[in-house]
């Protein structure tokens, strides 16, 4: 571990009714680290990600992000979430606001910035994702790739300590994937700690520090991209990697 952990999730269990989705998962993420989570659908990887900012409440376990215990009832979760950016598969931009409005809403309402301040930060965040000229466009006027980049700008404008990506390119046409991965690569190079759930194996190979393979609610194995992709030690990992690469 090069630095002190920015995310420290231990013994996470999650039940949805009788369904046991996470069965004791540990995830420790160092500062500046990019952890890439792969696994078949239903393996619990999205649920794990959503436990890291408490969009889902873990049934048991502990989640500490940037030194803040998210599961402590006295923790101001809204305050803590500013430090944890999240990007969703379906973008989830606010359709009634412009790109700039999407980016500045939390800056004004949560971070307490003045409108001028928020606008300046919002323009800077949009410039970072290459959309400086789209500030006044509504989501409906943007392509999927542009919408996802606005969603990334919305998260990074709050200067998070860690970014969670939940299948950020799965809803995109193939020719639009590259622009989103490009922004994620820039973020990575700026030293942002990231947890990425995705099927973009090429991105995993050349950007991830660590790849975790999840199946049936547990982390089956983890290692460097080379270890997981070239010499997986579990049959289930091997089968999954084989399947992904055949397609």
């Amino acid at each position, binding site marked *: 571990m090069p630095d002190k952990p920015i995310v420290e999730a231990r013994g996470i269990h999650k039940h949805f009714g009788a369904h046991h989705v996470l069965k004791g998962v540990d995830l420790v993420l160092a500062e500046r680290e990019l952890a890439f989570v792969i696994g078949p659908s239903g393996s619990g990887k999205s649920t794990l990600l959503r436990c890291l900012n408490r969009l889902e409440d873990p049934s048991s376990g502990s989640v500490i992000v940037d030194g803040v215990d998210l599961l402590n009832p006295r923790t101001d979760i*809204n305050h803590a979430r500013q430090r944890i950016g999240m990007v969703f598969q379906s973008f*989830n931009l606010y359709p009634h606001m412009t790109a700039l409005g999407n980016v500045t*809403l939390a800056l004004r*309402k949560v971070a307490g910035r003045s409108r001028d301040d928020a606008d300046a930060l919002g323009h800077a965040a949009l410039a970072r994702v290459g959309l400086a000229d789209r500030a006044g466009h509504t989501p409906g006027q943007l392509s999927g790739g542009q919408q996802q980049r606005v969603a990334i700008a*919305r*998260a990074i404008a709050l200067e998070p300590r860690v970014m969670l990506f939940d299948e950020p390119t799965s809803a995109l046409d193939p020719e639009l994937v590259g622009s989103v991965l490009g922004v994620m690569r820039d973020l990575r190079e700026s030293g942002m700690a990231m947890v990425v759930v995705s099927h973009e194996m090429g991105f995993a190979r050349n950007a991830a520090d660590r790849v975790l393979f999840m199946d049936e609610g547990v982390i089956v194995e983890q290692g460097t991209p080379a270890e997981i992709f070239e010499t997986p030690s579990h049959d289930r990992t091997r089968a999954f990697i084989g399947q992904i690469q055949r397609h």
Partner: protein
Amino acid sequence: MSNWDRFLDTFFNAKVMAKYLPDIAYGMLITVELAALVIVSGIVSGLALALLRSLGYRPVNLLIVFVVDLFRALPPLVIIVFIYFGLPAVDVSPSGFVSTWLSLTLVLMAFSEEIFWAGITSIARGQWEAARSTGLSYGQTLMNVVLPQALRLTIPPLTNRTIAITKGTALGTVVAVSEILGMASSAVSNSYNPSPLTLGAIAYLILFLPMVVFGRWLETRMAWKR
């Protein structure tokens, strides 16, 4: 007297119309007052109930659903009669005007609550999650993200429902409210000529046609590109 003349004399008798025009105008004033009060109190209380319901307290929600279903099922006239003739039994004697206002408010509240609730629940979960993930509180998300989208969706059904219920101000005539229909009816009795009813119909058109057009305008204006 030809049939046509008889028709004109019956429904468009200028002398009768001129005589009762001030009465109908006064009735219009009462109708406008009543309608405005009903719209404001009905929609505000309906929205308040929908917001309360969105907090998800089960016993509260059961009560809201019961009240809403009750006032959607009862004919407004029954509610008016019940309030006007029933409440005096417990030593509360609302005027006809207040009874009508209260009744239509309850009905509009019930229908608008359902419409607002449908609007709120139609907003995708992802909108809530995206907003909450940036640190917005439940209330901030509701006010800044969910309601602005939900209200746009509710405008067409809400406009239709509001117009339908506001026209129910005419029911006030059974508890002696001197609104348009009440004034027109008594004018008909006094003049032995139905022309005041024509005046009343024109008065309703003057009041409600703009509302219909306004609703349509609002609907197109509020549309946004997805």
